[in-house]
């Protein structure tokens, strides 16, 4: 990476890492299923921003935008299915607590 690109990248890189760490903390620390999905969303947002910044630095914004659009479409599908699963778990267990999901425990 040339110095100019690095000078543009490092502030974005720091904030992207921070956002990723926040999302990871949310996924790991919570016992609520909806909150875990919110953490997953934050992780995906950090990756989205990384893709856009990479495209901006390498002057390849069109490819980055195409990738981001694909990412967003897949993100929506994942979220819709995950919400359906969360609703199913809630109707089955009357709770969203991850610690109570022990039905398949051997």
């Amino acid at each position, binding site marked *: 990476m040339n110095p100019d690109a690095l000078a543009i990248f490092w502030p974005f890189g720091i904030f992207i890492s921070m956002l990723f760490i926040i999302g990871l903390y949310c996924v790991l620390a919570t016992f609520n299923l*909806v909150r875990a999905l919110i953490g997953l969303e*934050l992780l995906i947002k950090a990756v989205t921003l990384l893709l856009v910044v990479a495209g901006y630095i390498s002057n390849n914004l069109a490819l980055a935008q195409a990738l981001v*659009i694909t990412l967003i479409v897949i993100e929506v599908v994942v979220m819709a299915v995950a919400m359906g699963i969360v609703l199913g778990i809630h109707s089955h267990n009357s709770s969203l607590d991850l610690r109570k999901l022990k039905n398949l425990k051997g």
Partner: protein
Amino acid sequence: MLINIIILICLILSGLWTVMTRSLLRAALGLALTSIILTIIMFRLGSPLAAVFELSVCSGLISVLFISTISLTEPMSQQETLKHMRQRLVRFWYLPFVIVAAGIALSFLKMPLDFKLSVTETMQTVRFILWDVRQLDLIGQVIILLSGVFGVVILFREGEKR
């Protein structure tokens, strides 16, 4: 660059608020706010198509999905609902005045409204990459979309059966 850093700080603060707030509904709203700030950064980095997708899908559709899931899993009791309905008009009595005042203030500001996007060439390139360059992964994306639709349909059907 300073503006970018300020917007990035706002992004981190809204992400922190999303994670740290106790109410799930506020967390969903914080996520929508994070999406909106990310959209601003994308516009500033010259990615308008991705930004529009992010704004409409992530801060619109996914927020609606989250809020509907939260409302379906944490229903309010009857007393809470009645109390909420009684307080609704009282809490927002000032909203029409705020909207009218904001409209009058904006009309006095004389903002430049001749927005012209200077990125039509980039957008055409994005369209070219999206529809002409990609071949195999487009099939994969369609399969993922179909699996998502079928998954949601099957889940809702099972919910109705129960």
